């Protein structure tokens, strides 16, 4: 089962990389070939948000059950989320350099991902500052939940402050789909493929963390 899953992930992502670069892109005003970044950038951003809320979910489960397994899951989600968050920022900045002229211009979308990076960073800083395992698990869970309840506010705040120049990823403001069918296929495959990659990595990560945790408790 695991073998099939990994080969599938490998196939989809290879397909996305090849087709994403090779297939012709429909003429989208002001984007052109630069639109290819969305095959990579959008899945990365989606996964960094998904991992963030999964981490919060496991934090709630941890506080309810006090089962260390959930803390390990929550921490693993946060670590992978942080990785994908950096990738999303990097791919986004590259695109911004060629479309907007500079790597970073505090567009609302960039600000949002910056805040996500900050939250992940603060979460890791908190974890490294607590010695006792139980305390670390409990306090970082509480912090993850507090951070997660404040994040949705950006959805309301950002549009009030500045208008974003960020292209709407799938559906534009008029509700029309911007992509032609071949592009949509690659895009959907990219989303699926990278999400599967994330789940596969998460599974590995959780297993590694569990081994580390058990080793620690067996040492004495």
């Amino acid at each position: 089962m695991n073998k099939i899953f990994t080969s599938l992930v490998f196939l989809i992502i290879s397909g996305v990389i090849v087709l994403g670069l090779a297939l012709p892109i429909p003429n989208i005003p002001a984007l052109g070939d630069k639109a290819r970044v969305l095959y990579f950038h959008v899945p990365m951003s989606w996964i960094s948000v998904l991992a963030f809320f999964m981490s919060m979910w496991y934090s709630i489960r941890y506080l309810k059950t006090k089962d260390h397994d959930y803390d390990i899951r929550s921490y693993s989600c946060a670590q992978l989320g942080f990785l994908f968050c950096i990738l999303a920022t990097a791919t986004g900045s590259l695109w911004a350099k060629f479309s907007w002229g500079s790597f970073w211009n505090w567009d609302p979308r960039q600000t949002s991902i910056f805040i996500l990076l900050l939250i992940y960073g603060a979460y890791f800083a908190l974890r490294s500052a607590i010695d006792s395992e139980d305390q670390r698990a409990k306090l970082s869970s509480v912090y993850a939940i507090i951070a997660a309840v404040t994040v949705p506010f950006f959805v309301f705040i950002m549009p009030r402050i500045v208008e974003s120049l960020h292209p709407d990823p799938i559906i534009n403001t008029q509700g029309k789909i911007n992509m032609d069918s071949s592009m949509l296929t690659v895009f959907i495959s990219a989303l699926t493929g990278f999400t599967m990659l994330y789940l596969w990595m998460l599974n590995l990560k959780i297993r590694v963390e569990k081994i580390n945790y058990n080793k620690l408790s067996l040492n004495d």
Partner: protein
Amino acid sequence: MKSIEIVCDNLSKIYSGKVIFKNLSLKLTTGNSISILGKNGSGKSTLIKILSGIISANKGSITVSEENIPVPANLCYSRIGLISPYLNLYDELTASENLRFFCGLRNDSEKVMDERIDYFLNRVRLFDKRNETVRNYSSGMKQKLKLIFAVINQPRILYMDEPSTNLDSEGIDIVYETAEEHKKNGILIVATNDKEDIKLCESSLNIEDYK
């Protein structure tokens, strides 16, 4: 007075991968007293903290029941008294402010509270210094004040962690008197290495048997 009972079932505590104790079971009822023995750092204080509900164990359960009816966890605190080195009162407040604050939190009426505070302050000979801030107290006087804090709400289960530290012989007598008095109607649990303290209790438990 209602009968009281504390039952611990298979308690285990692991801290940073180190086993403090495991499979510790214990059952005490009204009139029982037990001393917890063990070297420094063997986990006596940890056990007292777990029994009094300040920290939780990794495995096992603790049930406090009154007349065989279990007391809900959030009400257990009102049944217990604790005197220990890791419990301090507020330095910048006076003795009577401290006691009034804690009695107020436990919902005593003003009159009962004042009477009881005065009674106990007189008993440990701190009445004249009741309006001095605790910061100016000697460590023995602080220990006496902590004794009042432990017993002022007439707890059913009294935990004493190193009760006679810092005390002069007069102070130690007061502690023993209080403990003896408490034993008549409640449960006494003492963590100590002091030979005199051990004599307070009818039975003993060596925590190192549970490693």
